[in-house]
């Protein structure tokens, strides 16, 4: 057994040693030094999934993620419901990012059915999805904080998140599962006085999150635990097909809001946050920077939004698509690029609906990142992937 362990940058991902078979449940001694550990699925540190980890002393030599504990068959269910009935259940995989997870579905159905959306509805969608992105990132940040043992970072985001949840409740009527986006626009117009309240809350929210720098991001303990931990090089981030904050933390300038603008994102001035380090610290900082960018976008959208007008085109009952027409639409969600591949038939239900979710795409990086890390660094690497198990399983 070698005592010298490679650093992550030295590991070639095509090594056959990554393709070992899982030894099954329980602890198992593979040889004198190597032990197999099951992390999860009940342990909250792993989310609703299991990580089968092989350790040599304190070092991880192999990791095999085993998702699927919250698989609900969303794609199969979608084949049994028509385009409108599909809305509420498709947002269930990521209920705290429910506007963004519905966004590509709605865009895709609009293209399949040939619907034009009113201008005001597009702005309402942009505002709702940016608010939702902040709500998601605050939730993720709270979890990330508590798993690094930083209780303040659990309490503050969980509390400040309420500001935006209140806004979404005013806007949609529901705190978390909004089901607000429909093909043809949004379900309801904004309530009276919403613009002023939104602007005030968002300004205060931005002031609050800037204070996180002092307590969390400039904290030497956080930096020592995350810097140079789980480094993903630019080349490998591209090769593994990662997306969102993982990709942008590795120095790739790619944000769909800028690269492939949907709705009215091309009329807004958007800055993409990119960091070159590719370590867990960069991956945890990018979402925080994204929240400030979201505040900017919301302020611009509130200013440019038409003050009145329709927000929804009424559809005929049971709208039907064309025979075997297909569409692939994607948006930038809180975790990265989220795409829907929809194949329509001459029926009110989609023939096939596939969700290409960012969590599932980023999961492939996990075995690679954990190899050679200390076991104690596992939570900081795992949660820095911005991974949401329920979304990955669908």
């Amino acid at each position, binding site marked *: 057994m070698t005592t010298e362990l490679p650093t992550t940058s030295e590991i070639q*991902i*095509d090594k*056959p040693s990554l*393709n070992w*078979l*899982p030894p099954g449940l329980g602890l198992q001694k593979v040889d004198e030094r190597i032990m197999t550990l099951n992390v999860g699925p009940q342990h909250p540190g792993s989310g609703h999934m299991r990580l089968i980890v092989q350790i040599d002393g304190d070092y991880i030599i192999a990791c095999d993620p085993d*998702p*699927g504990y919250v*698989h609900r*068959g969303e*794609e*199969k*269910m979608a084949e*049994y419901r028509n385009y409108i009935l599909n809305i509420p259940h498709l947002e269930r995989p990521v209920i705290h990012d429910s506007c963004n997870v519905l966004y590509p579905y709605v865009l895709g159905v609009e293209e399949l059915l040939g619907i034009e959306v009113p201008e005001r509805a597009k702005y309402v969608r942009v505002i709702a999805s940016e608010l939702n992105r902040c709500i998601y990132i605050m939730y993720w940040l709270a979890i990330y904080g508590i798993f690094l043992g930083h209780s303040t970072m659990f309490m503050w985001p969980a509390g400040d998140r309420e500001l935006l949840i209140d806004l979404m409740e005013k806007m949609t009527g529901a705190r978390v599962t909004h089901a607000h986006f429909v093909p043809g626009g949004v379900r309801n117009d904004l309530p009276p006085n919403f613009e002023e309240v939104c602007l005030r809350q968002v300004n205060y929210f931005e002031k609050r999150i800037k204070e996180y720098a002092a307590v969390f991001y400039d904290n030497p303990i956080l930096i020592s635990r995350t810097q140079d931990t789980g480094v993903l090089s630019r080349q490998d981030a*591209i*090769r*593994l*097909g990662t*997306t969102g904050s993982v*990709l942008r933390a590795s120095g*790739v300038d*790619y944000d769909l809001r800028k*690269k*492939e603008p949907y709705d009215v994102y091309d009329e807004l001035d958007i800055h993409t946050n990119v960091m070159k380090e590719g370590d867990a610290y960069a991956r945890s900082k990018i979402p925080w920077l994204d929240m400030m960018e979201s505040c900017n976008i919301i302020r611009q959208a509130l200013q440019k939004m038409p003050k009145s007008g329709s927000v929804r085109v009424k559809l005929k009952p049971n709208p*039907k698509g*064309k*025979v075997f027409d*297909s569409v*692939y639409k*994607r948006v930038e969600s809180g975790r990265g*690029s989220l*795409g829907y*591949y929809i*194949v329509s038939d*001459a029926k009110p239900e989609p*023939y*096939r609906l*596939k969700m*290409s979710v960012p969590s*599932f*795409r980023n*999961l*492939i990086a996990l075995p690679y990142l954990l190899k050679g890390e200390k076991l104690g660094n596992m939570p900081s690497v795992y949660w820095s992937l911005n991974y949401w198990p329920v979304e990955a*399983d*669908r």
Partner: protein
Amino acid sequence: MSSDSETSVDAESEETPVVKKPEEKQVELPAFEKGISDKIIEKFGDKVYVTFVKEDRVGIGTSRENVHDVAEFIRDALNYDHVESVSGVDYPQDKEIEVVYHIGSYSDPSLARQILALSTRAQREENPIPGNDATKLPTLRDVFYSVEFHEREVFEMFGVYFEGHPDNRRLLLPEDWADLPPLRKDFTIKGR
């Protein structure tokens, strides 16, 4: 009067939905996307066919013997570098299962908006024995590393075995799943 004519048009299209298929419409195809599909046609000729050319989206279909070569060409000559999604679509009426790779590019800025949908079809068996029947395709993992988990998912959900894939274990389904692959059309949800 006008409302009468509108309803008659609607009724007509409701009865014969096939008429609504406007694929042969003489619209001007987007030039950049047309260029991408032309390059592939130029290289492979009859072995590939263009399924659609839309704004930002190109669809290429090929047979299972050529899919590996086409994918290599797409990576090396056209600068696409990762796969976003691998979807299976079951067509029991054709006795085939289609597998669609949605391929994108991070490294080439001119391709940032583009998605290339590479589709191929595998033979479909009535009584599938996943992994041990004729429903097989060559893997693209050696071309695009990012397909690894996606192909595992297609294998368990549709029973399409990817030859050459190093790791064809279950991913999302339980270990003791002993029914049909669940996303095939003949697997029905109870009570529906």
